[in-house]
């Protein structure tokens, strides 16, 4: 008889989100952990593992454990795989629990890049930054102008458009669908209905990307508690079982033949996580996909195999991702319309949906929830397969 080494997410903590001023990222992180632990029906003293992830402000580290008064930890680390971090943390926590290194691991992300008088663009280290003296090859590269994520993702989206005929209106369909989902999410910052025409009329940031192709910027913190599936069953909420996880990384290759922009590491991470879970894309009821930009959702759907490479535009263009569409996707509004907590945005909504706690926005079926994280410029990827049901098939990790 093998030991049940499967794990589950037992707690979710979400602080106040958005224009939350006057609080440090560390304070938000501490609150998110407290909320997640209480949500699970546990006490802080039960936590014996802590994984910390930073956003733009980069001000939270392993000292958070001391600030929370934790002791006797079996796992403590500051992890960064950019937007892929949340999935990487859950995978790391799952492996630690399965290996017996820790029993109860809190994974937290917090960030506070917004200040009252700064625009979201400035929070990105944008136009408000002091002029730099430009020097050397790095100076030439800055002068060349491909200097921030907006521009680099625009280059990726353009490459897809040129190769496959993808259109801005098809990207708009993603933003419109997510806004419709956001209308049912009390946590969402942007809940007014959106049309394709609104998207097309929004100002160009770096064409082909417009303002409504780009994510929000938010202050706040989100944490989850990972523990054994067996233990989770005795806790306050129905467990959200972790059936599969994977990650894949591929630093941008700047050479002839590079697939950059057209194919992302999701093409390896997604199938690997689904293989571990013993499912295929046809089994997925809900997708919670990392959406720093509309295009990220489109290319991830292709790479995961929901449609053929190059067909993503047509796949999303018919309203398929909207609340009344065929594939429930980014049901909380995502980072485009709800809140920007990096990989914790799709993960938190996945937990809510898997619990059946989505209220007005609860998807009709939630047996399998697929979660993605994406970081760098389409260079880092993580995938989770979650379910309200235990993994009963012969597979498992035993």
């Amino acid at each position, binding site marked *: 008889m093998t030991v049940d080494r499967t794990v589950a997410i037992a707690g979710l903590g979400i602080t106040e989100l958005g224009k939350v001023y006057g609080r440090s990222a560390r304070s938000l992180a501490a609150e998110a952990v407290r909320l997640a632990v209480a949500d699970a029906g546990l006490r802080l003293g039960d936590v014996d593992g802590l994984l910390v992830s930073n956003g733009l402000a980069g001000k939270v580290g392993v000292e958070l454990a001391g600030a929370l008064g934790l002791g006797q930890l079996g796992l403590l680390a500051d992890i960064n795989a950019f937007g892929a971090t949340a999935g990487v943390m859950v995978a790391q926590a799952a492996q630690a629990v399965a290996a017996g290194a820790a029993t109860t691991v809190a994974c937290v992300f917090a960030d506070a890049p917004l200040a009252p008088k700064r625009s979201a663009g400035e929070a990105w280290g944008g136009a408000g930054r002091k002029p730099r003296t430009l020097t050397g*090859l790095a100076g030439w590269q*800055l002068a060349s102008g491909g200097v921030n994520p907006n521009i680099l993702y625009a280059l990726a989206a353009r490459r897809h458009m040129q190769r496959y005929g993808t259109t801005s209106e098809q990207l708009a369909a993603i933003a419109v669908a997510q806004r419709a989902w956001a209308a049912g999410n009390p946590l969402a910052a942007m809940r007014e209905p959106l049309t394709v025409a609104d998207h097309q009329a929004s100002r160009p940031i770096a*064409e082909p990307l417009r303002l409504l192709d780009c994510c929000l910027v938010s202050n706040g913190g989100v944490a989850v508690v990972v523990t054994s599936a067996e233990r989770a069953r005795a806790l306050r909420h129905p467990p959200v079982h972790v059936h599969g996880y994977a990650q894949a990384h591929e630093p941008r290759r700047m050479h002839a033949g590079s697939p950059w922009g057209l194919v992302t590491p999701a093409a390896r991470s997604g199938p690997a996580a689904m293989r571990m879970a013993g499912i295929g894309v046809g089994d997925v009821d809900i997708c919670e996909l990392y959406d720093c930009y509309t295009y990220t959702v489109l290319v991830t759907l292709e790479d995961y195999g929901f449609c053929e490479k190059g067909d993503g535009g047509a796949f999303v263009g018919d309203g398929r991702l909207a609340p009344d569409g065929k594939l429930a996707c980014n049901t909380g509004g995502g980072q485009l319309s709800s809140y920007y907590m990096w990989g914790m945005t799709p993960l938190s909504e996945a937990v809510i949906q898997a619990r059946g706690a989505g209220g007005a926005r609860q998807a009709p079926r939630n047996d399998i929830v697929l979660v993605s994280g994406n970081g760098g410029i389409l260079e880092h990827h993580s995938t989770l397969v979650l379910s309200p049901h235990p993994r009963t098939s012969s597979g498992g990790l035993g």
Partner: protein
Amino acid sequence: MSDGTTGPPPTGVLAVGAFTAGAFPLVARDDASAAFFDAAARGELLVRRCLDSGDVLGPEARTCPGCGSARLEPFVVSGRGVLVTWAVVHQVPVSVLRGAVPYVTAVVELAEGPWLLVRLVGTDGSDLRAGQPVSARFVQPHQPDEGSGADSGEAPGEVLPVFAPGEPAAVSGQGES
């Protein structure tokens, strides 16, 4: 359009009059980039080539991704390539580019293999397609006068490699809008 400059312009360097003041920030050389900027002033694009595999790499390469070698040599490329992708930047991304927007930034694939992230001049971005020929140009940045006649003693920035649609410019003075 080399009017106003003193002495003969370097081969293939676009005259300042072809661009709005501030369109290109001033860039100073350092030891590591001296040869790159010397080449640019001659109208040459200097990158690196792997001594072990012969792969041609970008100018900033430290290691050959193909074979792992760190033995790289300077290498002058043809300046010919094709357009991989481009973006038309409207929102100022960093303050030194405030005078540049809207501008076109692009990934170009050199005939020798490497991809470069470059400024694309001579186009507003509306007439481009992936795969079309592009070629190197060289610009001399200048900044708007700060008022008083004295030139504030600031050294002019280095000549910067950029790209434009089409085949390489035959000789100097091919200023485009």
